[in-house]
């Protein structure tokens, strides 16, 4: 299992041709208190860079951008009732989507943890 990071502050953990996507702790901290998330539905297809949801904090609305091409397999239902979980545990329980990867080669364009840490430093 390998985790990659995007410049839009998402993490993506890959197992075979499926993956889990969420926002990084750094992103959650920048957003502040999160009060709502609008998620795509199972079966929705998207390309890298597409808007695949919106996170609303007390401050503002922020789009979630797809880090790769794929299809939504599952949206995390926990976040509908408890969006604040995105502040508490964004890199574990508060994952946003399970997705099917269209083109795993795209992962090569993302950062590893060390690269992301440098990116946000």
């Amino acid at each position, binding site marked *: 299992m390998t985790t990659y990071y995007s410049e839009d502050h998402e993490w993506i953990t890959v197992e075979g041709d499926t993956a889990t996507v969420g926002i990084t702790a750094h992103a959650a901290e920048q957003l*502040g*208190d999160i*009060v*709502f998330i609008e998620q795509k539905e199972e079966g929705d297809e998207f390309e890298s860079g597409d808007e695949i949801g919106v996170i*609303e904090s*007390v*401050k*503002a609305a922020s789009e979630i951008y797809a880090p790769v091409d794929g299809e939504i397999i599952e949206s995390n239902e926990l976040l*509908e009732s408890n969006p604040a979980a995105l502040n508490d545990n964004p890199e574990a329980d508060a994952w946003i989507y399970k997705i099917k990867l269209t083109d795993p080669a795209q992962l090569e364009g993302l950062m590893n943890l060390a690269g992301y840490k440098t990116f946000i430093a």
Partner: protein
Amino acid sequence: MSRTPKRTPLYDLHCALGGKMVDFAGWEMPVQYPMGIMGEHTHCRTKAALFDVSHMGQVLLHGPDAALKLEALVPAALTQLPEGKARYTFFTNSEGGIMDDLIVANAGDHLFVVVNASMRAQDIPHMAASLDGIDVTEIFDCALIAVQGPSAAAVVSAHCPQAAEMGFMETLEAPIDGTICRLSRLGYTGEDGYEISIPEADADRIARLMLEHPDCEPAGLGARDSLRLEAGLCLYGNDITPTTSPIEAGLTWAIQKRRRTDGGFPGAARILAELADGPARKLVGIKPQGRAPARAGVEVHDMVGNALGKITSGGFGPSVAGPVAMGYVSSEHAAAGTKIQLIIRGKPQPAEVCALPFVTQNYKR
């Protein structure tokens, strides 16, 4: 505008407290501290919060008949304002719109006026040009802090016993830790509290003194906005503008009886006509039925898709524990309980017109 934002006398304190600084109306101000907007908001509603509002314009009006002369610019009855009392009002334009809202206090031998940060550059020349024979003096060497919340009286009176005895909208000068300050028992959060004008050299020390109280925590602009929205208080530039009248905005209460009869302020023709006949649109509270916040600019439709108006302020209300908003709708849709739709990211979301404020105001009575 690429100028360097100005700093208030409390800038170093904000940094020491971990404030996240942003440029607001040309000032470098804390939007939040490590506690976060939600926590700061709740702290203000349950205990006490200290806000730096030094970016607002503090102005002294000296000269004969200052109150009478200022009445030519605002629809409040100021000649009847007793010494030691303050009143909320607004500058109106010739079309009956609002140019800014402000607080006017009768300080005895002068009037003490506080205007919005973003409108200092308009309001002060406006007063200087219009108030014949009055010295209009902008104060640049005083900070302004707001201590707000149910514990505010305890926090402030610990260092200024006179504060405990003040009534709502009363103002006086009194020493705090040896420094003469002007205290006014008012604010813009819906809670009891004070705004305190402090000489800049003493502001950092006095603010830290207030923060030593176990009930008092610093709060930033983010909490200030969610607090005033829940309290149903208008934000200039959003809810009230040069094209919205005070009657449309639900500010009729701030136009005292004599001014409603006699007029004599800019835009009186429109304002008094709307008072008599009712306005075509009204500012109302709006409660989205779902969880998605509806922010400024969101379109308001009736249940069959006709446009009614727009949200002017909206977000998440921490004390309401859900989204809250204000906006203008045509008067026939302004009754509390009216079902409406909000067009959020292209999709209609159900909402309801509701009475303001969203939370009970807890002013000192």
